[in-house]
């Protein structure tokens, strides 16, 4: 639900990067998005389409989102399992002593500039 705020936050960051690299514009932005990162890709894409019209640097910028699956590690038995399917409790040994190994990422991976 905070995708628009996040989009502007990304744009603020990248405007600095573009200035440091003397770029005239940004043609592509690649993000890495974890499956349980609280950001929904389709909302993000919609906000992006709206926001790029407001910022000259991004006028032609395509947004590419690479999804990272959520994986949980179990301290009890040392195995990993898919977080979304099984949640907090390990499906192998039923231990609640588990933590998220991967899946809450929200990274700017790379950008393409001209």
């Amino acid at each position, binding site marked *: *639900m905070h995708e628009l705020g996040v989009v502007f936050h990304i744009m603020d960051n990248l405007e600095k990067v573009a200035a440091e690299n003397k770029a005239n514009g940004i043609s592509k932005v690649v993000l890495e998005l974890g499956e349980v990162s609280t950001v929904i890709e389709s909302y993000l894409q919609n906000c992006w389409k709206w926001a790029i019209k407001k910022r000259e640097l991004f006028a032609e910028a395509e947004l590419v989102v690479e999804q990272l699956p959520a994986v949980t590690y179990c301290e009890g038995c040392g195995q990993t399992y898919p977080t979304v399917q099984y949640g907090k409790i390990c499906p192998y040994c039923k231990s609640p002593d588990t933590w998220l190994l991967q899946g809450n990422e929200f990274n700017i*991976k790379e950008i393409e500039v001209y």
Partner: protein
Amino acid sequence: MREVRVLEIKQSVFADNDRQAQELRQELKEKGVFLLNLMSSPGAGKTTTLMRTIEGLRDTLKIGVMEADIDSDVDARTISGSGARVIQLHTGGMCHLDAEMTRQGLAGLETEGLELAILENVGNLVCPAEFDTGAVKNAMILSVPEGHDKPLKYPLMFSICDVVLINKIDVLPYFDFDLDQCREYIHMRNPKAKIIPICARTGEGVREWTKWLEEEVKLWREGR
């Protein structure tokens, strides 16, 4: 054809904000100001709890309050009756405050002479959890009518909070709210979270909360 370059960034979207928040915390430490970030859903009782908090601490601490809302100044008007210094921040549609907005808010509040600054964040359990405001401690209020399952639904919020106040305990008999189950769910997300049941309306439990806060402010200021 124009030349296209690929720049590797490889950083979290929130990295920039995290750095600004860390700088702000350091500056506040030097000034001896303790910043508390107070979060909750809309209607959980942030403003009423704040009024009680100020009432309990105004004789021992100099308190300032930043009221963040998308619009209106009703909360700031309420708080201004308490004797604390207060400023209303408008987020202009944004669902949370970030470190830079908090810094601007603190500048507007004028922290000179303040010992405790409280940020009443936008009522929301999702977005404020993502953005470090620069606060020394995070507190959230979960009210009884919201249900004891909220720690399962909004895990990030509960995992970043130092204190969870369970408010409106006077209406416990009328709701299917299981306090023990709620404690268990919160500790599943955050074993270190301190949980204090309160009723801001009647003042029940508030003393334990203000005592905790007073102690934390003392520790922060002594650590300078």
